[in-house]
């Protein structure tokens, strides 16, 4: 399987659908340990993003992801705007000029996204942020010969759920200290939806690198 502009659009559109569906849920998660806007931020940003990319014509993945990243940076705000925005900008650089790529190249681009996230947010695994989903998921994809759609979804979900036990060290939830324990991190939850949307692309169940 290869990954092309149409599939990339589908990924973003599927993700946006899931975000809109889970807008209230994400906001509730953020009300518990943050300021209650994560669902609103993501819904606003990805709505705009989908509008932008369905109107646009793209010859390569780089320019598509650039529009995604720029729209997120300009429309979301908060912590998630720069973070998701940076992730897509980094992927865009890695995929510049590419009409379609194999999964290996896509994973490399997402690894660049992760690096961008970590530089921007200065968070590590264990800090109870979206990194707790991103890093193990990228690791999984990097090291597999084949990617199981279900494995990818399950792993992201497991890692999202895993943030529940953690004490937040970064982001707004960090102000709660130990009181952040027992709640799922909202950014981890939206990141789970991002990878679950990607997994849906891999319809056949397994994808060879």
């Amino acid at each position, binding site marked *: 399987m290869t990954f092309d502009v149409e599939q990339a659009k589908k990924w973003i559109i599927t993700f946006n659908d899931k975000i809109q569906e889970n807008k209230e849920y994400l*906001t509730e998660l953020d*009300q518990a*340990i*943050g*300021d*209650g*806007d994560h669902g*609103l*931020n993501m819904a*606003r940003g990805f709505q705009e993003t989908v509008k932008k990319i369905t109107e646009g014509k793209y010859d390569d993945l780089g320019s598509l992801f650039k529009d995604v990243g720029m729209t997120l*940076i*300009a*429309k*979301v*705000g*908060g*912590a*998630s*705007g*720069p*973070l998701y925005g940076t992730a897509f900008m980094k992927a865009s650089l890695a995929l510049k000029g590419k009409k379609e790529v194999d999964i290996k190249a896509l994973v490399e681009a997402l690894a660049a996204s992760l690096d961008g996230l970590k530089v*921007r*947010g200065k968070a590590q695994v264990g800090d109870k942020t979206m990194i707790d989903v991103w890093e193990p998921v990228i690791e999984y994809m990097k090291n597999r010969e084949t990617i199981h759609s279900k494995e990818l979804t399950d792993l992201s979900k497991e890692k999202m759920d895993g943030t529940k036990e953690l004490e*937040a*060290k*970064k*982001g*707004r939830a*960090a*102000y*709660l*200290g130990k*009181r952040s324990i027992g709640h799922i991190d909202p950014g981890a939850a939206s990141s789970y939806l991002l990878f679950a949307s990607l997994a849906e692309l891999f319809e056949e169940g397994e994808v060879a690198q």
Partner: protein
Amino acid sequence: MKKLINDPNQVVEDMLAGMVAAHSNRMKRLPNTNVIVRKEAPIQGKVGLVSGGGSGHEPSHAGYVGKGMLDGAVCGEVFTSPTPDQIFEAIQAVDSGNGVLLIIKNYTGDIMNFEMAAEMAEAEGINVAKVVVNDDVAVEDSTYTTGRRGIAGTVFVHKIAGALAEKGATLKEVEAVAKKVVENVRSMGMALTPCTVPAAGKPGFELGENEIEIGMGIHGEPGIEKTQIQPADEIAQILLEKILDDLKLEENDKVAVMINGLGATPLMELYIMNKKVSEVLKDKNIYIHETFVGEFMTSLEMAGCSISLLKLDDQLIELLDAQADTIAFKK
């Protein structure tokens, strides 16, 4: 949710329209942005000051745009940091070639968005300095975590850095005095009731009939603990003790006091809080140079208050006393 609004998703837009209509003699809105700048911006020969953050904290920050304080304020969605492109617009609009100081409250989102804007500005050859305000002693200060939040003490940074900029100081000097304010200001708040982000439609947290939250953040971030409501004198003492522990004041030190209402607290109650605050400081032989009582940094319709103390030296006193002419702060 009962609010005087039209559309929950248009509150920032409508607010800015109403604000500019009210104060068009003082401020203007940059076209197609949520940026408010001084009417005469950029001011020649002066360092520009830009602050901003999520909306819902009015009069912060647009209320402080004017002579002797800010040159520009960037208004994000409710409780959501503004985006880099908006901040960049503000920077460009207030820079007169003398550079721009960004006054940022210490939230991950604010820091990242302002940093990205600063990078954009520097790429355009604009000199940018940043100061991060982290006055909220409710939160442990730790290098391993995000550190303290920025709350009402930020207004003192606007006032004092703004006064020095107005005198024609350099960016380095303005940045230095802003950092001095940050080092010397501490705040802590508490809430009696939650508030509702219009687009969310329901309160950000819950408090029982007789419950209050000590150490509340200005976006409804939980504080240190929930307790039963107590007499104002005791609440004042709890907040003040945490602040004094951290600020390490000595006898005969001079301070400015701010008793800040979070939105729904009657001025009456803020003055009742100040009664105890002034008594405690007097007992400790700390000299109160000036007391500010009112709404400076709010959280929509949250009931509650914060107390801020700023330790003063001669330079800070002179700048605090200097002229300021903004909607929300006049001297």
